[in-house]
Each structure stands twice: as C-alpha cells, then as structure tokens.
C-alpha cells in the first residue's frame, strides 16, 4: 500500500514538472490551455474583422467576417458569392496602418469562376477606397504608396484550382502544412465547397461523413495552426476513388462501424460484436484493423508484419518505414 502511494506521488511530480516545461505561461485553470469565458470575451473583442466592403453587411455580421470561424455564403447562381469571396481575399490584405489585417489569402477554386482580371479590378477599387478614406495618411507616409499596388494584392493570394473531390480533400489536408509554412494567411476561401460532391455520390451517408469530416478539419484549421498527422501522402498514389475515400475515412475514424453507428444513435441491435471473429470484442475502428484475428491473417497474407503497438499512428509509420513506402501504400490501398 505504502509503495503504491509513493509511486503515485512520484508520477504526479513528473507530470507537474512536464507541464511546467510545456506551458508555464498559462495564467489560470486546472488544465493546460484552458481559458475562462472572460478571457474568451476580451479575446474576441480585441479581434479584428475582415471587412466585406459594405457597411450594412458589416453591421449584420458584427464588424465583418470573423477570424477563427467558418462562415458559409449561400445563394442562387449569379447572386454574387464569388464576387464577395474575391472581395474578401482582397480586403484581408488592407495594410494594418489603414485599419486592415495585412494578411494573405488562400483561394481554393472548384468551379473555375476566379477571373484574374476581375480580381485586378477589385484590387484597384479597394486601393482607391483606401485613398479616399485616408488622404492625410497617404500624404504623410509616401512609403505606404509602394504597398498599394494591385499587383501586390494579387501576389499575396495563393490560388488552388481543384478539378475533382479527391483533389479538394487533398488540398484541404495539405493546408495544415501550408499554413504552418505561411503564418500570415488570414483567410481561406473555398468557392464552392459542394460542387464536386454533387456528382458521383450515390451513397448520401458517405457524402455526409466526408463533408462533415472536411468541415471539422476546416474548423480546426481556423482555430489553430497546429500540425497533426499529415495525411497528404495517401492521395499521391493512383488507386480507385473508393479506396482513397475509405482510407481517408479510416484515418479520421469515420468508418461506418457498429460503434460509429451507435455513436450516431442508429439502432444496431443487441449484437455489437465483430462479425468476422468470434471473440467477444466490439466492432470498432481499432479492433477491425488490428487485433481482429481475421484481419491479422489478411495482413500476413500480403506480407506485412504488424508490430504490437497500441497507438495507430506509430504503428502505421513503423510499417511505412520498414516496407518500401510505395509498396506498402499499394498494398494498404
């Protein structure tokens, strides 16, 4: 009994010191990274917003488009969704001394409506508006004039054109890495998110899961730029889309397993156990691929030796290192 208490206190000490090393600057809270509502409110109030270019629209939105949030713009064709998107990509770049954010923009175009000549026009219009608003400042600081060239505005938009939904998912996954390298990106515009998902998806449930996975990813990106497990390597190999989507779902824990169905409140009956092996393990994502004896025999039949790590990611990277990467992926996919 005594020794157990001793061990426990040792462990606690170790954890404490580790926490101090990692994040000693956190002022309050039990957990690292926790914030109280007051902090959040003052954070939010000090945030700058991206102006939409229209006073009325800004006041509806509470100052403009918010950072750290995902905003959806919907409407019938020709109502001006693309125009608003391009306008935002320009407005985010208004320099700080003129009351803007001075950031950069990522524009993901699925429909091909991004017309560079139109972007140029909007950039020109934006500059002339800045001149009208800040004539005195413009006179004082002539150095600012060099900033205000439409060419500079165009140069600070990163433009991705995607032609299929696999590419779209790949780009969104790649964004994590991209944002890690380009810290000054302040807005990501996707025009439009659903275009490629309106074809080829007979299975509506699958579509919903892929889309909700994407939106979760986007929300995470918008909150913080931390880099998680990089998934972009999956998409580099040629294989059928079905398998690509399957693997992507698998890595994001969105496969339609029984425990997933249960989490979604779908009635699965009393039998929650794996249908492939007879041992009484619930059919979930981890079990199905690793400890399930049936799968084990599958893996070994294609010549992949799995280690006995419990953590999925280390397991995968371990296998990826031992087998040649291309071979492994081909087999895996």
């Amino acid at each position, binding site marked *: 009994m005594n020794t157990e208490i001793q061990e426990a206190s040792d462990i606690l000490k170790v954890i404490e010191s580790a926490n101090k090393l990692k994040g000693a600057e956190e002022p309050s809270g039990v957990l690292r990274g926790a914030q109280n509502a007051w902090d959040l409110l003052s954070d939010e109030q000090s945030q700058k917003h991206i102006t939409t270019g229209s006073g009325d629209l800004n006041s509806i939105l509470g100052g403009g488009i918010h950072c750290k949030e995902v905003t959806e713009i919907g409407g019938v064709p020709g109502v001006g969704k693309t125009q608003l998107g391009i306008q935002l990509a320009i407005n985010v770049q208004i320099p700080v001394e003129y009351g803007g954010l001075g950031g950069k923009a990522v524009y993901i175009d699925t429909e091909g409506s991004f017309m560079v000549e*139109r972007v140029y026009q909007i950039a020109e219009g934006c500059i002339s508006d800045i001149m009208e608003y800040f004539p005195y400042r413009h006179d004082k600081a002539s150095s600012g004039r060099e900033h205000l060239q439409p060419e500079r505005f165009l140069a600070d938009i990163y433009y991705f054109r995607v032609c299929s939904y696999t590419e779209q998912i*790949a780009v969104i996954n790649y964004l994590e890495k991209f944002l890690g390298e380009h810290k000054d990106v302040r807005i990501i515009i996707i025009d439009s998110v659903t275009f490629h998902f309106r074809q080829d998806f007979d299975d509506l449930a699958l579509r919903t899961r892929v889309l909700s996975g994407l939106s979760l990813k986007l929300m995470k990106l918008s909150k913080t730029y931390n880099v998680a497990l990089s998934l972009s390597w999956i998409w580099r190999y040629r294989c059928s889309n*079905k398998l690509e989507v399957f693997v992507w779902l698998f890595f994001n824990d969105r496969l339609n397993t029984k425990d997933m169905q249960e989490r979604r409140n779908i009635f699965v009956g009393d039998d929650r156990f794996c249908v492939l092996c007879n041992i009484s393990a619930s059919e979930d994502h981890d079990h199905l691929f690793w400890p399930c004896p049936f799968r084990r025999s599958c893996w070994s039949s294609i010549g992949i030796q799995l280690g006995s790590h419990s953590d999925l990611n280390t397991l995968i990277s371990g296998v990826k290192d031992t087998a040649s990467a291309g071979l492994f992926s081909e087999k895996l996919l």
Partner: protein
Amino acid sequence: MRPPAPKPPLATSTYNQQEPRPEKPLLLLASSRAAKLSLGCPLLDRFLSGGLPAASVTEIAGESAAGKTQLCLQLALLAPLSPLSSSSLFLYSDLPFPLRRLRLLAPKSRPDLLDHVLVAAVHSPSDLLSLLSRAQHHLAHPSRSPNRLPIRLILLDSIASLFRSDFDASPADLKRRSGLFFKISAKLKELAYRHQCVVVVTNQVVDVVEGNTGNTVAWSSGRQVSPALGLAWANCVNTRLFLTREVDGNGGSVKRHMKVVFAPHLPERTCEFVIRRTGVFGVEPAQRSNNSSEVKAHGYYLESDRTRKGGSNQHKQCTHTSI
C-alpha cells in the same frame, strides 16, 4: 450484418495527382487577358470585355431562332484566326448539323478554315461523357502535323436537347439528371482548366408557368421564359448569356438582344445584335437613339473607350461599394 459497402464512385480525374501547389494570380493575369476568344465584332467584344474567357464555361441560352447556333458557328470559324489559334470541337445534338450555313459563313478566300472545325454528333448524356474523355486524350496528345492546330475551343449545341428527351419528371429521374449535370460540367471545367480551352454550351428555354423559382427570367417573343434544365444546371456554368428576340407587331422586323445574366467578370448589361448573311454583329446603341446630343455622347464614348479600361471603371462602381 455489416452495412453494404458504399458503391465505388467513378474516377472523375484521370490525371496524375501530385501534391497540390498554389498558383500565383499575378502570373496568370497576363495570360488571362490575352486568352479571350473574339466574337468577330468589336462591339460584341467590347460588350464582353474582350470576348469569351478561356478556362471557364460559358452558356448561351435562348429560344429557337434567337441566334445560338449562328454564334457557335461563327466562333468555330474565328478560332483559327484569333490569338488562340486553335481548331474547334463542335459537338451537336440537334440533328442535322447546319453544314450549309457553316460553309456560307466561311469567307470565300479562306476555305481552309473549315478544316479546323471538328464535328461530332452526341446522342445521349453518356455518349457525351465518353466523347469528352476521348477529347481529353486528344487534347493531352496533340498531333504533330503542322497544319492541324490544337483544340482550344469546345462547343456543345445544345445541352438541353440531350436531357429533355429521355428523362421523366419523377424524383428518381430528376436526381439522376442533376447528378449527370454536375458530372458533365466538372468534366468540361476540367478540360477547360487543364488545356486553357474556351467552352461554350448552348441551352434552350422553358416558359415560366408559375412564380419566380430563383432562376433567370427574361421576356422573349412576348413570353416570360427562363433557361431550361433548372437551377441545378445554373450552378454548373460560370457565365450565362441570354439571347432574346422581339418581333415588331406589323413591320415584322426582329430585334435581338444579348444579355449578361451572370458572369464572374462582367456586370449585368444588355446589347442589341443582328444576324446578317455574313454573321452575327452588334448594333451600336447610338443608332437607335433619336436625341442628337446623346448620339454624340455615345460616339465620343466609343472613340475614347476602345480599351477595356473604360468598361472596367464602370464595372467597379457597380459592385465595389465603400469599405
């Protein structure tokens, strides 16, 4: 029981997939300005700020005899002469192909222009998809012979007649239909982007029977019409041009108008045009005006605004309000 495995979605992209790479719009600016397909008339070109843009899908909608096919034929003949210097792929579903009119439109001095118009008939949506994937191969591996120009113009006349025959109004058929729209449109857009093609699709019209359904509505021949195939197809095109015609009560003279319904780079505006023996031409707004001072003003406007700049200034005022 495990739920049935999801059906395999068909491969949409047969191009090799690499790590995504951002493009710099600044570098695209010059090429996007140069790569416009002229309509062969300075007035119409100015109306469309230089012509039809590459790497995007343009729809020309209008009732029968509004001039859709005429415009397509003219574009096909102009493509080899324009800066694009390309042959054109003319896919037609309205049989028969108007060969006579094409030969009439071709200038007598340049019979070789007809060599650069490639023609194929399309009978069904699936036929179209397989033709497009064959075209993709053609575009990716252009033939080496010097008197064969690369294809950079794809014309489809018309999308509506493909879909209006063999689909019922049942929910299942409608769902299948809109799925096909997006598939075709994604394919067209992919071809347009990868090979910098100009893509033109024509569309028919339907009468507006009840209420405004959110789709474009215009008056043509004294009736209220909107483009066929509904809102789903409207999502599939980048630019929509609407051709309308009005017949004067007793004189029998026809007035035709071209209207920009929506476009990423153009404001909503209308201009008049005529169809002559030699092709489609724009009509100056000043010609219709009776006020002499207004005529002068228009004349002046024409003189000073040959470049695209003037139009763009006007444009900016329309959509860019104050910060």
